[in-house]
């Protein structure tokens, strides 16, 4: 019986070529990604050489951005990119994970598919549409209602002080949150679906309530994966350009208030690249691209480190 099975499944001896070919093809495909990143990095480095040699490291902490006098610095843009992405994550991750939990654990079967479709449609809306919707619908509402309320109730915090224009760091964070919600939700949903039923059954068998089951059997089992979903969302948030530039106010400044306008790395490159006429100006925009790549890599490394330390303290070892 055994011999019969093995002869029918295994290839006849001597034809190992498909195995080797497949292995190399797969390795090549994986290698391409690395090559691509290296090439992008190299191109950005080559383009920004002039700026690198002119400004050196202080480019990173200079707050000046003055194309007329050819003087450039990246700090307000780095600040804007990190803060707007952080706001987006703080909103999108709880919302996305909660939606995914509802869809996998709680929602009635016939509701699941329509909600999943609605989320997927959200992912198909072009960036510029979110931006226009931001300008004409979201911003006026934020300015007249939410921001006024925040200033009234939390105005003692520096985060919610100063004049309200509508366009602001907070508005950008909210728009990005809406835009990364589909990816955070879909991935969280896949992660939660991959939690074995055995986990849930075991928790129920111990007498856990539904909430306790979610907490001890599902969420803690899936936390690494959920963290990964957040990181993918963060990757999208850092590079989001068009919608952000339409609602952030495009002012290269570092302000404590979330009501104040700001600027991001991706936005300034998109805004100023087409009309950049001097070589140093163009080179500085390239360097901003290089900085964005570096920020993205650093944030991912930091996330990996956090992920490692997190598993160590996990109550349930998997």
């Amino acid at each position, binding site marked *: 019986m055994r011999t019969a099975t093995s002869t029918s499944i295994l290839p006849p001896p001597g034809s190992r070529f498909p195995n080797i070919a497949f292995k190399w093809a797969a390795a090549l495909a994986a290698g391409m990604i690395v090559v691509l990143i290296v090439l992008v990095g190299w191109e950005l480095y080559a383009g920004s050489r002039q700026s690198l040699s002119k400004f050196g490291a202080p480019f990173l902490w200079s707050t*000046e*951005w*003055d*194309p*007329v*006098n050819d003087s450039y610095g990246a700090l307000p843009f780095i600040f804007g990119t990190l803060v707007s992405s952080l706001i987006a994550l703080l909103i999108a991750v709880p919302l996305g994970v909660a939606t995914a939990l509802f869809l996998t654990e709680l929602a009635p079967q016939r509701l699941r598919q329509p909600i999943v479709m609605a989320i997927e449609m959200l992912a198909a809306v072009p960036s510029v549409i979110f*931006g*226009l919707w931001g*300008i*004409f619908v979201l*911003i*006026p509402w934020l300015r007249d209602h939410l921001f006024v309320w925040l200033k009234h109730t939390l105005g003692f915090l520096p985060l919610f002080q100063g*004049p309200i*224009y*509508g*366009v602001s760091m907070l508005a950008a964070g909210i728009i990005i949150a809406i835009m990364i919600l589909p990816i955070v939700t879909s991935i969280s949903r896949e992660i939660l679906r991959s939690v074995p039923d055995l986990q849930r059954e075991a928790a129920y068998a111990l007498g856990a309530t539904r909430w306790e089951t979610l907490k001890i059997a599902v969420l803690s089992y899936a936390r690494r994966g959920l963290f990964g979903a957040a990181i993918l969302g963060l990757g999208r948030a850092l590079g989001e350009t068009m919608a952000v*530039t*339409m609602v952030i*106010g*495009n*002012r290269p400044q570092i302000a404590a208030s979330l009501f104040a*306008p700001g*600027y991001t790395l991706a*936005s300034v490159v*998109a*805004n*100023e*690249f*087409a*009309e*950049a*006429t*001097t070589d140093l100006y*163009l080179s500085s925009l390239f360097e901003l691209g290089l900085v964005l790549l570096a920020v993205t890599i650093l944030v991912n490394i930091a996330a990996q480190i956090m992920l490692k330390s997190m598993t160590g303290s996990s109550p349930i070892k998997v």
Partner: protein
Amino acid sequence: MKKTLLALLLIGAANGASAQMLINGAGATFPQQIYTKWFDEYRKIDPSVSFNYQGIGSGGGQKQILAETVDFGASDGPMSDENLAKAPRALWHLPTVAGAVALSYNLDGNPQLKLDGPTLAGIFLGKVTKWNDPAITAQNAGVTLPDEDIVVVHRSDGSGTSFIFTDYLSSVSSDWKATVGKGVSVKWPVGLGGKGNAGVAGQVKQTPGAIGYVELAYAHQNKLPFADMKNSSGNYITPDVGSVTAAMASATIPDDFRFSMVNSSGEKAYPITGTTWLLVYAEQKDHAKGEKLVQFLNWAYTTGEGFAPSLDYAPLPDAVVKRALDRVHSIKY
């Protein structure tokens, strides 16, 4: 580049094997509407040639014509001496149409405002901060202006519109010239940045107390009120096609056509105006293409200019057309 290739392929496929000539251009976005109109109309006159224009921005237009990857470039600002020196041979600026930059605002009741240059510079420098500032009320007797903060809105993307506007502010305010200067992007002392004309118009429309500058066509299309500006003869002028042409007629235009027409001296000239240029090599490498390009330019200056007013562009005054045509006829191919 990919888009150009794709366009080439598509056009090639549409025409089968027939050898239709394709002339490529790239650059400024401000004149894109009129250029597209010209190319459409010209196809009816000479079907053997088709034009492909990519509105990639003036910086890109300058770069591509310098690298000779296109047959003509286009720019909203004149090329700097530094960039022009990179050209492999004589590269000419040919002005095509002109436009006005309008000051739109958002005030209750949409009053018709009058402003002069120094006041406008004060607003954009952050020194005039309230709508009822004496500098504004003194020029607007009969209009009640609120005790409201002025919210300045400017372009966030590099643009020829910003160039014209900052060029104007530099010419009327030494303070502006010293602290900010002129350029397609500048370091704005105050205000919010909106992306594109649409972004600025949208933000002005949405923000009470806002003031921002947009191309005249945008102010028209969005039904925004816009200010009459005081010109150098002391008259308050409404921006329209006539007052832009008047500005150009009274501007001093040097032989190489690289000129600024802001704050020009004409009695009826609107002060915040600018022109846009095609960038063409004086000697064309490709004989057949050069011939077609010259024929087209000849048509554009004689017939094409007539299409400008319907699209809110100002046609060139006759004297300038004549000078430009002389230049076109001396292109060698």
